[in-house]
């Protein structure tokens, strides 16, 4: 199979690159193992302080509604963090005290939404809180199995049941001017969070749950749909097992599912993520990049990989694949002519592109631009 570009890794970075290249007329493929960092996305792009119109348009065209309003978002444990850009259903408040009185609504038997932590956090900011639990008979089926009351399972039910939640909340509501609900709405039907807001006569805030993140998975679904509508080939549940490189040029890669069919392309992008996504692999002696064996910046002395204090910055999280100024991957100190690196597999080696989601998007756009310039 022949493509203009093949992208290895289907997370935020890979999809942004894929969409950009498809939109510019290229024929591309994305190879994805299936899980990526969007599955535990907070819903707020803390690392994108100045997103720029290009990024906003890219998301808008995919149907991912964002809003830009520098302020604070409410974390699942009831603290506040600064951010300028977030998904539309994640509020950004100008100040911590966003209401006078708050009604926090949880589901009975749901342990992944921390209503007591939220209440304590909000009360610290001078908002009085009331926590109530909804007992919906429709959720009983989930409760039958002791490990089914989790965010995505509830969200699947809520695509049908959200109107019932609106009614229950209307009954519970007294004189509160804000209602906090768990982020389990709008997994498939993206209009649901907005309709809940219209249906409840108070400000509605959706606060996060334990992963998987419903807004994150929704974002993943929408970006993937956009990529496929533009004609891209998204290979889900597959991974690269071999790469053919000659004289500094990548010719093709082979995947687990398509073993004998090589994927050939003029250009390749490596966006395989960090340790969790196996873009970087570590053993007691080294940190390496498993697909091409690229140069990785890391400390040889393993004692220097960690800070014994969990809450402190961890050096290992900065390690990453080395790339030249155009983000071409380095192998034995020399750039490969047609392999570009994007996203968190870079670690912290290129701070000029930012961190986290900001890094994923900016490096993906930069890599795509380099390919299109050729």
């Amino acid at each position, binding site marked *: 199979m022949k493509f203009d570009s093949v992208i290895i890794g289907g997370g935020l970075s890979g999809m942004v690159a894929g969409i950009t290249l498809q939109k510019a007329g290229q024929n591309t493929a994305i190879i994805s193992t299936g899980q990526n*960092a969007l599955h*535990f*996305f*907070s819903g707020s792009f*803390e690392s994108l302080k100045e997103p720029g119109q290009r990024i906003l348009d890219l998301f808008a065209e995919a149907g991912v509604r964002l809003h830009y309003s520098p302020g604070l978002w409410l*974390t*699942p*444990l*009831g*603290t*506040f*963090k600064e951010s300028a850009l977030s998904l539309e259903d994640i509020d950004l408040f100008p100040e911590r005290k966003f209401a006078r009185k708050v009604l926090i609504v949880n589901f*009975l*038997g749901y*342990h*992944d939404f*921390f209503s*007591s*932590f939220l*209440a*304590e956090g909000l009360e610290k900011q001078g908002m009085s809180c009331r926590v109530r639990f909804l007992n919906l008979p429709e959720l*009983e089926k989930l*409760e*039958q199995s*002791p*490990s089914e*009351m989790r965010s995505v399972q509830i969200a699947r039910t809520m695509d049908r049941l959200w109107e019932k939640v609106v009614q229950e909340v209307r009954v519970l509501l007294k004189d509160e001017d804000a209602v906090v609900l768990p982020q389990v709405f709008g997994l498939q039907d993206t209009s649901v969070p907005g309709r809940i807001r219209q249906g409840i006569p108070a400000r509605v805030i959706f606060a*996060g749950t*334990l*992963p998987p*993140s419903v807004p994150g998975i929704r974002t993943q679904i929408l970006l993937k749909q956009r990529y496929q509508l533009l004609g891209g080939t998204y290979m889900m549940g597959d991974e690269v097992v071999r790469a053919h490189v000659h004289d500094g040029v990548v010719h093709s890669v082979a995947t687990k599912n398509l073993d004998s069919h090589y994927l050939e392309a003029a250009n390749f992008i490596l966006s395989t993520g*960090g*340790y*969790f996504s*196996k873009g970087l*692999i*570590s*053993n*007691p002696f080294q940190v390496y990049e498993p697909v091409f064996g690229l140069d990785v910046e890391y400390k040889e002395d*393993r*004692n220097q*990989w*960690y800070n*014994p*204090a*969990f*809450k402190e910055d*961890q050096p*290992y*999280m900065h390690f990453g694949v080395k790339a030249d100024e155009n983000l071409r991957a380095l192998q034995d100190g020399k750039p490969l002519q047609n392999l570009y690196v994007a996203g968190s597999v870079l670690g912290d080696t290129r701070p000029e592109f930012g961190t*986290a989601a900001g890094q994923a998007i900016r490096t993906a756009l930069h890599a795509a631009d380099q390919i299109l310039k050729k």
Partner: protein
Amino acid sequence: MNANEFDVIIIGGGITGAGTQRDCAMRGLRTLLIERSDIATGATGRNHGLLHSGARYAVNDPESAEECIRENMILRRIASHCIDETDGLFITLPEDDLGYQQTFVEACRKAGINAEIIDPDLARRMEPSVNPELIGAVKVPDGSVDPFRLCAANMLDAKLRGGQVRLQTEVTGFIREGNVIKGVHTLNHQTGETADYYAPVTVNACGIWGQHIVELAGVKVGMYPAKGALLIFAHRVNNVVINRCRKPSNADILVPGDTVCVIGTTSTRIPFEECDSVAVTPDEVTLLITEGAKLAPSLSSTRILRAYAGVRPLVSADDDPTGRNISRGIVCLDHETRDGLKGFITITGGKLMTYRLMAEMATDAVCRKLGVEKACQTAEIPLPGSEEKSFEAVAQKIWENPTMAQKAAVSRMGTRAARIRTGNKRDDALICECEEVSVGEINAAIDRLEVSTLTDLRRRTRVGMGTCQGEFCACRAAALLAKAHGCVERERADLEDFLQERWKGNFPIGWGDTLREAEYTQWVYKHVLGL
């Protein structure tokens, strides 16, 4: 009777202290146990969890070997829910001297240990993970024991018999009149409150920290802190304890326990100042993996879950004026005869699995001082939870068709699992999916087993001990604790402490899947949950 007065005060909430409190309570004494942090935080919870058959000591220390096999048989009866009767193998590898096997077996038999030479082929069938290169094998009655459960069950029985327990409470000094210890001054680390407690006898059962306690009392005991490092693997690779049939050395015991297995140990003398913060070094990790893989080669490709270290409370011979107790390992000092200080006893040395004997010795000494004549019964009366032997049978007695989670709960709590609220879906919901711990079991532990922090909860229920190392369950359990204690603010700090405590055991082995999990936990707690 004044609420601050007791017959005996026991300092130290490890297995020796808990066992001594139980024994004293069974002999009708009014007991108080004081522990500066939580149960089983010292050497009790930081070892192999091996129910020695005694075979390891048979050649060099026959007295210890006899002690072990006697206690081994007793614990199978009285603590069945804390014990896994796995049996053990002593294997001879090509580089070992096969001639040692005969010496070993003879010494075992002399000590009363049923040691049986078996064909290497049979050993490979009995334990498929064993190094297939073995040239000799001996089967012995080793087993594994859960020290947290054992400690909690002893303390629970003491409480059922009227004993009182003060956790998170440190002894800051002794109340002394002339050469008589009358009681102790204490400080509660959680509330900041101070309190005085009185008793005619005080027992120091603090393991290596007993050194500090005897100093507070103004006497000297020469202790020898010996650090031992161990690794926990994420799977139960072996079902039978595997030992090397040679002179005891480093990293030559692999013990299965619950869902995991443990390799150890090393032995290094450390300064006293380091006892509170022992860390495992990269060299120790390398040694443990290399030697461990010789027992079971698959260990070299098995994920390591944690590294940890404990400090053995050995007593150096030259400082013990009587010198009598050294060979036995157990040291019971009556400071009245030894130092002229009345009302004070130190019990130390020994092993996890000889705790009952140590408790008996200490309690005998207490009773002699108080003039109480009642025989020890701890070798006959089972611990709460261990009244029935088979946990499958117990589970079926409590629930007609027990679920996996209920069976897991019975394996942890024995017959006490009947106290878990169950039968409705809210109580059956799982908090910890790796170890199948339910809401009901966690609430039962909070109510009945003196839980104040997430780490306390982990010791009693295995929450956070599985492959995810508390990534998800820590938060869920924190919410239950916040509800039970009515304080969210304290729980936030507790959650941070819990994650720090997990990281402490993860970073020495931070590579491969452990590092993946650590990166994920970092990301989730710092960036998503906003801790």
